[in-house]
């Protein structure tokens, strides 16, 4: 396994503490070992891809990092706050969006964003909502009801929601799955800008390896609930003797498939 974590070199939080530190995460669902001892650290400003074929343990790992699923073993620490005892404090630093999550139907986009901004502690959220909508070019959707939006627009609003409070850690699960190439490009640019300007760390899952190569400085591959590679995309590809991440992914998917037979 590679261990060359691409250290963040981005101002202003480079010297800050590790944003996310997960140690020895294990999760079993009845007889199935979903996650088998994952260690993961993400530094300020880092853009990390958490990758792996279906069943590799990505979603369970993400849910444990977010405090939604309790690990059987291991510890998660976010900006120095340990889960689950300091979950509320930890989550103040985290933004999360997933391509599969809908917007509540009976809310306008601005209302939805305002409510979540307040949950994150912004008592006067108007400017933050306007800035976040503008950052991703969807200010024109502010007055729309959630159920009037296309799938891609809902995903964009979800990402805007996750960035409202300028989190230290942004966790995105398949963020561009339903976006067309133009909008996906806009999202990647917006995310890269947030990471560069605020020193926000990004942890993203995706099945689009080209996108991951464009967005992430570092990738962590899971297979069978374990970390099997961790490093810069080209280093990881070279480690497996493949040309690119797509090749690595297909190789691991094949391995996963053979294991499950």
């Amino acid at each position, binding site marked *: 396994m590679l261990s060359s974590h691409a250290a963040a070199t981005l101002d*202003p*939080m480079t010297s800050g503490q590790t944003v996310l530190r997960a140690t020895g995460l294990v*999760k079993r*669902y009845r007889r199935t070992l979903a996650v088998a001892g994952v260690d993961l650290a993400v530094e300020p400003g880092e853009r990390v891809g958490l990758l792996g074929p279906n069943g590799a343990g990505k979603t*369970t790992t993400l*849910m444990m990092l*977010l*405090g*939604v*699923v*309790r690990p059987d073993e291991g510890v998660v620490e976010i*900006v120095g706050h340990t889960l*689950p005892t300091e*979950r*509320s*404090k930890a*989550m*103040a*630093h*985290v933004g*999360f969006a*997933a391509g*599969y*999550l*809908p917007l*509540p*139907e*009976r*809310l306008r986009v601005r*209302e939805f964003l305002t*409510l*979540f901004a*307040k*949950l*994150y*502690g*912004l*008592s006067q959220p108007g*400017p*933050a909502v306007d*800035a976040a909508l503008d950052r991703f070019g969807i200010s024109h959707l502010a007055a729309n009801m959630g159920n009037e939006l296309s799938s891609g627009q809902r995903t964009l609003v979800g990402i805007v*929601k996750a960035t409202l*409070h*300028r*989190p*230290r850690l942004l966790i995105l699960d398949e963020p561009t799955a339903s976006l067309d190439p133009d909008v996906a490009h806009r999202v990647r640019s917006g995310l890269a800008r947030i990471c560069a*300007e*605020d020193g926000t760390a990004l942890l993203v899952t995706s099945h689009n390896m080209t996108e991951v190569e464009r967005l992430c400085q570092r990738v962590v591959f899971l297979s069978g609930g374990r970390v099997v590679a961790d490093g810069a995309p080209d280093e990881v590809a070279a480690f497996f003797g493949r040309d690119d991440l797509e090749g690595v992914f297909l190789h691991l998917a094949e391995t996963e498939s053979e294991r499950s037979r």
Partner: protein
Amino acid sequence: MSSDLNSSDLNSADLTGRSARSASWLRIRTVARRHAYVLQRAPQRWFDVVFWPVVDAVLFGSLGVYFSRASGTGPKGVALLLAGIILFHVVFQAEVSLATGFMEETWSRNLLNLMVTPLTEAEYVAGVALFGLAKLLMGVGTVSIVALALFAFRITDVGLALIPIIAILVLVGWSIGLIVIGIILRVGQGAEILAWGLIAMVMPLSGVFYPVTALPGVLQPVAAILPTTHAFAAARDVVSGHPLPWDQLALAAIGSVVTAVLAAVFVTRMLRVFRSRGFISRHT
């Protein structure tokens, strides 16, 4: 970079004391506001706070008039039935607003969104309960106004004794709501029917309209352990013109506190199971 919006600055304010309390209060109000939007835009939700209160007031008021005439008991019978249904709506509205508030998050698949914010479970329940109080005022107000307009029954004539009785019924309503939430966390959305089913069981067992002695003998021990039974018995005494029976009220108060503690322990355990078994996948 507009540093005033960065979470590192937010956190410097959320560490201790007043800022933490004000952030917590902001989150509670935000949850209440979210549910106000739902009520505003979901016409079917008005059934619980307007439609059923009107139906119940007309139904039980009319039954009271009929039986009073048939038995020659006069307006007292009408008063007992209407006071019973008004006070039943206190426990009903408290329970249903809490349970359906949580169910709204599962229907709109918003649970995961909420669980990854700084919102704590206690703040969430407090927010839904806060808005539930507004719904309770609407529902109980509606049934009271209909009782006054159509049957000349004024619930406020019962006097200050209503206050502790209502407080006990609200606490029991919230406790049942928590139990329903706990069951939904454990077994999923299939348990939603209990939001209305459990409270429907409480109605006959608590002797809302009659003394427990009118129940079949086998059910009377069950009724005796329900705090609502003693609260309704106290209310009937007061409506009948007797002084407030403090012994019944004390039993109801103790029972409601015990119920609330048990409900809180139950929902906390169910939440632990929910997190431990990864049941969030049912709601994403």
